[in-house]
């Protein structure tokens, strides 16, 4: 991509770069006027985008089909309007129906997608013997097997971690910490890539790197 020459494109590029520097200034100078400016600009723009997207989505998903005769779309519209009753003290209770419907739908959607991949398949994978037959395959199998058993025992909540649960829960916590450490390392690498991305953008804006 060539370096832009039009005024609006150049402005966009430099506004992005200045706001990036303003936000990163927090690391060196804590909360400062430049950061505060970027913070408020960011919040305002985010609200504007969310408002526009919400209106467009309501129009596209519910209002247009309703006007085309699909009467069933009156239900989500009424539930959505119900949310706004929080601003009227007398009718505030109406908003509870909208929230209850949202939560109910969420629970149904989540439950249907959890049982097989997150529970049954995980248990089956844990106890499936390894495909290979080397010593290391079996070491991995037992590490995963007993590690999972101990970790699950850590998540028993109606019993204190005493008696027979004390050693398994303690071992489970250690296994969890090993797993979390691995994830920590992976994510730090990913964050470094994100930082590199922003630095690359800044270098492109000032013309050191090609766009």
């Amino acid at each position: 991509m060539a370096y832009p020459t039009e005024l609006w494109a150049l402005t966009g590029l430099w506004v992005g770069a200045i706001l990036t520097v303003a936000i990163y200034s927090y690391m060196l100078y804590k909360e400062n006027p430049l950061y505060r400016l970027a913070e408020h600009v960011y919040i305002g723009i985010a609200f504007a985008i969310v408002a526009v997207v919400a209106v467009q989505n309501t129009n596209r998903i519910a209002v247009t089909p309703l006007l085309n005769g699909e009467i069933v779309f009156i239900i989500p519209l009424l539930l959505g309007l119900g949310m706004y009753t929080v601003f009227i003290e007398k009718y505030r209770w109406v908003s509870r129906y909208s929230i209850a419907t949202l939560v109910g739908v969420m629970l149904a959607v989540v439950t249907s997608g959890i049982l097989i991949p997150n529970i049954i398949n995980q248990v089956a994978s844990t106890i499936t013997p390894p495909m290979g037959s080397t010593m290391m395959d079996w070491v991995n199998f037992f590490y995963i097997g007993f590690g999972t058993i101990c970790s699950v025992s850590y998540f028993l909540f109606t019993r204190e971690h005493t008696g027979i649960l004390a050693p398994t829960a303690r071992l489970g916590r250690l296994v969890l910490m090993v797993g979390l450490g691995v994830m920590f390392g992976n994510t730090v690498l990913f964050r470094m890539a994100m930082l590199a991305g922003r630095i690359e953008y800044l270098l492109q804006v000032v013309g050191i790197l090609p766009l």
Partner: protein
Amino acid sequence: MILKEGRIVALILLLGSFVLFYLYSQMIEQGKKITIRTLAPLEAIPEAVGRCAEMGKPMFYCTGITGSLSNAAGAYTLASITILGSLSRELAKAGVRLKLFTSTIDAMPLIQETIKNAYELEGKPEDYSEDFIELIANQSSLVSRYLGSLQRENPAAACLIGSLAYESVVLAEAGNTIGAMQISGTINYYQIPFLVASTDYCLISEELYAAAAAVSGEAGSIGPIAAEDVIKLITLGIMTLGVVLAPMGITFLVNLLGM
């Protein structure tokens, strides 16, 4: 055949869960005493509130970035709001100012009512203010707002509990730099390592639901946690048997789970 192969065990598990949830909720309602085990982050909440009261500084609370209660992460936000209810009562009692940051727009009425109710229950409705809550439209602007407020208001304690994503480490590290006592919790396992590393106490994964049930004390919340424990014990039994039998080439449990 009505039952699809590969989903029979899931159906049994689902129906079994419903029955157990109902039975345990009923048992608790009829007076059976079931308690949630000690969770260190919950035990630390009075200490955090006390710290704010002693230092005369506010407490920050962030429910995270879930866009809506209607997606999977909505459950984390709901659990967070339950904990918020109990925390708000402590804050009202101690006269500590709360500052809450959220970007879950449709949870706003719930958050407002939860805090308002807490202040009413403590007999201090006049102390409640709509200014306690800051609704920020999206993730990155929430981060910038939280970081700015952290430096301006210098809270003595902060809770990051709910649906947290990449912002978890940014918020928690910034809280660390000002020396705030921090309590965190999320189900999002990609973020748990950062919260464990950079906050004083962390509710790891399902501990968040257990903590919410413990503070609510309601049969409808504790019942499912107790029922889940039964399911976990059965799962533990299956896994132990499976791991022991696998080296002998006995894999009927794997086949059974595939039904």
